[in-house]
Every structure is written in structure tokens, then in C-alpha cells.
């Protein structure tokens, strides 16, 4: 087993959040505070500040070469943890031992000064991020070439477009070569090509066996890149391990709609006098309930409903939407027997199998309907946002991605056959 790179022992961090004060005070406020504090205590208001624990007894051991994704809701303590590891702030309790040079990127363009030229900023930002001067000198041409900024390197940064600024800033950071890299949501900025560069760079760093910790809201990136993920909730590590399971846990706490939805009380179940919806579930190919699905694996959506009035032709419908609300597809029962058979009263479970290599990565939301279309079209049930799940690509090279890791557009991601032939060999 590789040696420990980062050892976080019982780390807690407490912040004061004043309803009254920002972090800093003026003397006048302090005087006023000293005078009013006894009275406030008389009125039963306890203390001057509200204390919040941003982190509570976090224990983690990170080994060299690990690529770890940290996820959690806003305010769960992710940024605080990164700030402690980057030595920007100290823990209130506990300690951290780090073996190796740490490079931390909590923003793009740390230390850039708008009045200085690109060249001057490369040196300044590099030094602030912890590079030695000889190191910056040695890599200067590479940094500029990677950013594609040769023409503008003597221009003041304030005249750059935001794209140029981000390219140069990231390029400096990309050449930092720390043994342990700590990254905040820097991947979220910039255009698609820039994000791709970031992902490429992380891949490269991982291949070189360096340790990376990064915070992201991008679940695809987490499951695709990491072998280990950590979920923070209210300052505590609540899940630590295999990314799919951790992401699963996060999503089920994140979305009201999870992998399964049940209506135990018939009276509250969506529907009408004829049919009522009782359960919807997402199952993987082994029948297990899950909110995280591998892109190249088939899965099953099950719909259970009670037919209370016999004698209707019923058609279950599943619609899938992506996060942006785009309808990916709609499917309904086409089976020869059932679609033409009047139902008798009783409970039914209809299931549809969605093949692998069809949906693109991302969050998908299922709307469930049951309708009858003969003699007239009647919508008995329409439950929007019944269940939600995440399609992820675990980067095993078997999906439509192949070895490519950058962004891919489109609501579907079919795995198509490519052929090649050499027309004119040289």
C-alpha cells in the first residue's frame, strides 16, 4: 500500500457568525458591544456570537497517488476542508500531516494583477502558488504555449478577454507540479474546451501518480475520474469509498425523487377511480434499486399500479427528461398481448428495459403516466418527477467516450460502430 500523503486527524473548525457583526469590528462597535453585552445576557441572549462548526472531527487518510473527489451540499464544509489543507486557515481542533509539496488552486488567477503584463503575472502568480523562480523560468515557454498566448504576453492583463485571462491563469497553475494538488470548483469556470483541458490535465497528473483532492458538483467528473469519493454533510464525513455508492448517497439526499417512490396509502396515490399509481422504481440489470447507473449497462424502470375498475385498455407511459428539462424520449407499452387486453381489477407491475449506451451522462428525471386511448384518450395518472437517477461513465473505455474525457454534447450517447480504411498510404 502506498504511504500516506495526507493524514487528517480529528479536525474541527469553528466559525463565528455574528448576526450583528461581520468578522471584523470597529473600536466603536467593540465599545458598544462591551456595554450592551451584559444587558443582552440579562435578556437571556447567550453570548455575542453564534458559533457554527464548519467541520466536526473529520478523520481521513489519503494515500499517495489517490484521486479523491469531495462532494456535499453548499455549506457542508468542503471549502473549509480545502482551506485547512491549503494552510489558508487553521483548524480549531485537531491536526493535519502532509507529506509532499502541496499546490492548491482555490480560484483561477490567484495573484494576477490587472496592471501587469502577462509575462509579469506568470512570474508573480507562479511565485504566489509556490513555484521557484528557476522553475518558472524553465517552464515559461511551455506555460505560454499551453495558454496559446504568445502574441499577448507583453500586454497588460486588464486588456485580456476573460477567456484569455482564464487560459493563462490555468496554464500557470497546470505547470505547478505539486505532489499533492488541491482543487476547488475551478472546473466550473470557462468554456467547454477549457474544462476539457482541466480534465485532461487531471488525468495526466493522476497517471503520474500524484495525489489529487478536488471538490466538485460535477458527479460525472467524480465517478469518471476518482477511485474514491468523500461525502460531507454538516461538517462530517458521512460516506467515504467507492464513488458510485457515495454519489448515490449524495443524490438520494439531494433529490426529493430518489430511485424509488411509493404511495402506501391508496387514497393519497396519484390517479383516478380507474387506476392508481402505487410505486415507481429504477433497477439495475441485477434487479437492485439504484440512483446511479453505468452508461453502458441496461436498466429497468418499474411501474406498479392498482386497477380499481375493470374493463379498460391501459397504457403505461415513461418519459425521461434531463436536468435542463429537455425531453430525452417517451416510451409506452407496445407489447402485443397487453396493449389490446382489457384489464381486470388488481395490481400490476409494468417494466420497461432501457438499453445501455443510449442515454448521455447526467441527471435524468422520469415522469410516469397511465392512459387509455380507446375509445377516447384519457389520462388517468400523470406523476411528474416521480423518480430521478444519474447516468455516469466510469471511464472504462467501453462506452461511447472511448478514451476521450472531455465534455460531450447531446441528450443521447449511442455507442456507434466506426470503420476506417487507409485510402492512400504514404
Amino acid at each position, binding site marked *: 500500500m502506498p504511504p500516506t500523503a495526507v493524514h487528517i486527524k480529528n479536525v474541527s473548525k469553528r466559525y463565528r457568525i455574528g448576526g450583528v457583526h461581520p468578522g471584523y469590528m470597529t473600536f466603536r462597535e467593540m465599545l458598544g458591544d462591551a456595554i450592551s453585552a451584559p444587558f443582552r445576557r440579562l435578556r437571556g441572549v447567550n453570548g455575542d456570537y453564534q458559533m457554527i462548526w464548519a467541520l466536526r472531527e473529520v478523520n481521513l487518510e489519503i494515500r499517495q497517488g489517490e484521486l479523491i473527489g469531495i462532494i456535499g451540499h453548499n455549506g457542508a464544509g468542503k471549502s473549509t476542508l480545502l482551506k485547512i489543507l491549503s494552510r489558508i*486557515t487553521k483548524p480549531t481542533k485537531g491536526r493535519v*500531516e502532509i507529506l509532499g509539496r502541496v499546490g492548491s488552486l482555490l480560484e483561477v488567477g490567484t495573484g494576477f494583477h490587472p496592471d501587469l503584463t502577462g509575462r509579469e503575472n506568470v512570474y508573480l502568480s507562479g511565485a504566489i502558488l509556490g513555484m521557484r523562480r528557476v522553475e518558472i523560468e524553465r517552464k515559461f515557454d511551455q506555460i505560454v504555449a499551453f495558454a496559446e498566448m504568445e502574441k499577448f504576453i507583453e500586454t497588460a492583463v486588464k486588456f485580456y478577454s476573460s477567456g484569455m485571462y482564464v487560459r493563462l491563469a490555468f496554464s500557470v497553475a497546470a505547470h505547478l507540479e505539486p505532489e499533492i494538488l488541491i482543487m476547488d470548483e475551478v472546473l466550473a469556470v470557462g468554456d467547454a474546451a477549457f474544462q476539457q483541458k482541466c480534465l485532461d490535465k487531471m488525468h495526466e497528473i493522476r497517471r503520474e501518480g500524484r495525489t489529487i483532492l478536488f471538490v466538485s458538483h460535477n458527479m460525472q467528473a467524480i465517478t469518471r475520474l476518482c477511485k474514491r469519493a468523500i461525502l460531507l454533510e454538516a461538517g462530517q464525513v458521512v460516506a467515504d469509498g467507492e464513488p458510485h455508492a457515495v454519489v448515490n448517497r449524495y443524490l438520494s439526499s439531494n433529490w426529493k425523487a430518489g430511485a424509488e417512490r411509493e404511495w402506501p396509502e391508496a387514497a393519497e396515490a396519484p390517479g383516478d377511480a380507474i387506476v392508481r399509481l402505487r410505486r415507481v422504481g429504477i433497477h439495475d440489470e441485477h434487479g437492485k434499486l439504484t440512483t446511479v447507473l453505468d452508461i453502458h449497462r441496461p436498466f429497468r424502470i418499474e411501474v406498479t399500479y392498482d386497477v380499481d375498475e375493470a374493463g379498460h385498455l391501459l397504457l403505461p407511459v415513461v418519459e425521461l427528461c434531463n436536468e435542463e428539462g429537455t425531453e430525452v424520449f417517451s416510451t409506452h407499452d407496445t407489447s402485443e398481448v397487453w396493449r389490446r387486453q382489457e384489464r381486470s381489477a388488481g395490481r400490476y407491475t409494468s417494466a420497461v428495459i432501457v438499453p445501455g449506451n443510449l442515454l448521455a451522462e447526467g441527471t435524468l428525471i422520469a415522469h410516469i403516466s397511465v392512459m387509455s386511448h380507446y375509445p377516447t384518450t384519457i389520462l388517468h395518472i400523470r406523476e411528474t418527477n416521480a423518480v430521478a437517477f444519474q447516468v455516469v461513465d466510469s471511464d472504462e473505455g467501453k462506452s461511447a467516450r472511448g478514451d476521450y474525457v472531455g465534455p460531450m454534447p447531446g441528450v443521447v450517447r449511442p455507442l456507434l460502430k466506426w470503420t476506417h480504411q487507409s485510402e492512400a498510404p504514404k
Partner: protein
Amino acid sequence: MAFDSSGRAGSLEPTSNSVQNVSASSAPLEVSRVVIESEESGVQLSLGDLWAYRELLYFLTLRDIKVRYKQTLMGAVWVVIQPLMTMLIFTLIFNKFARLDTKDIPYPLFAYSGLLLWTFFSNAVTTGTYSLVNNSHLVTKVYFPRVFMPTAAVGAGLVDLAIASLLLISLAIYYGVRPSWGALMLPLMVFLAAMLALGTGMLVSALTVKYRDLRHALPFVMQFWMFASPVIYPSSIVPEQWRWILLINPMTGILEGFRAALTGQPFDWTMIAISAAVATTLLAVAFYVFRALEDTFADVI
């Protein structure tokens, strides 16, 4: 869209040197080990860190100098104009109107030498004080020894001082001052002034992070301090019952010593010793206070 093959990081050389150190198989020869202690563990001076980041001090100083003169028409000329104009005004008031006696030194030279050193001191303290708050985006986003912020302000001030000294030399030649061995003491006086400015700037900048009204008090305090120092008048004109103010003021020894070194007059070693002792003590206290408060900067700035 995305299949931009040029972005495939192909241009990046795989890095070898820094990585081999940490590969699991070979025993790492030189791997830095950092221990992050909690707030409860007390003040750490971390002097080793200052050395490790020494190059950053150079870049921060360079930044402060460059930024100051970017987009200015006259650039470094302003460094000379500031004490020069003040000197002309005071020459008019004190020398022509009030007939102030500066003994062997012509008043313009007397005033300019004082104003030169004072302007350096005052600017270094002021920019040093604002350095942390004005760079809060750095303080909250990246680690480096924060003491370099007020230190860089003093460093940049020294460059200004060097430029403005050219006029001082011209004035000295114009007024027929003969260089003496005492002139060798000039760098020591500048060094003491820099130490005093660093100590003051470090202390006030650290306190300013939490108590913002110090920045409003500072200009007033610096002005008061200037009139309580022999910048534009000789300490000999101060009545006996007020002398103690000059005695406890560390700038007195530095300013008088600077002038004595310039014009080859005898030094008042007692005053210089007091200044040196105060400057050293202040710097040590300021550094300790700064380190003690440093941990909370990112949380309260």
C-alpha cells in the same frame, strides 16, 4: 464544441523530477513534511517558511514597484516631486518667513533630507498597513507567509528612497557639502528607518485586519508623528519641557543621525542607540503579534 484535439494536453511534458521523489517504491530523499496544527497549539514563528518563500518577497516587492509606475506619465519623477514640493513649501514658511535657524546646514538641504527619510518611513508604514486588507483576495485564496505583504511595502519604499536620494546628492553638492567618513553611516540610518517602518507596518496591518478603523486613524497619527519628529525643524529649537517627546520618539535619533552622516557632523550616539533599541524591540513584538493573529486573517478579513 468539444473535440478540440489541440486541447489534448499533448504539449505538456510529462514531469519526472518532482514525481520520482514520491513514488511509492523508492525511498523519498527530499519530501517536504508539513504539519498543520490547530489554533489551540499556540503561536508558531515558522521562520523556515520565510526562507522557503524568500523569492516571493522579491516578486511581491517588484509587483508593488511596477504597479505604482504603470500608466503614469512621469513615473519615478513623482518620487522626487513629493518631498521636493514639501521642501519648497517649508523652506518658504520656515526659512524665509519664520527665519528658522538650522545652524550649519542650509535649510533646503536640511528639510529635504528630513522629508526624504520621513516620506519613505510614512509611505512604508501606510502602504504596509493597507497591504493585507487591500490584498484580501490573496489572503483568502492561497497560503504564503503573510508578513511578506507589509515587508514588500517597505522594500518598494526603499527603491523610491534610492531614486529620491539622487536629488539629495545634487542638493548636497550644490550647497558645497564635503563628503566625510560619516557618510558611511547613511545606510545604517536608512536600515534603522526601514526596521522601524517594518515593525510599525507589520503591527498595524495585523490589527487593521480586525479593527478597520485603524486605517482612518493612521493618516492623522502619521501627521502628528511627523510634527513630533525633527523633520522640518532642528530639535534644538524645541523648548526644554517638550524635549522628552523627541527623546522617546525613535525617529529622532534616525533623522538627526541621517543628517549628521550627510553633513559630516558629530553623531549623538545615545539617541541612535535608543532608536535602534526601540526599532528592534518593536520589530520583534510586531512579528510575534503578527504571527499570533495571522491564523485568523482568512477568517475575519
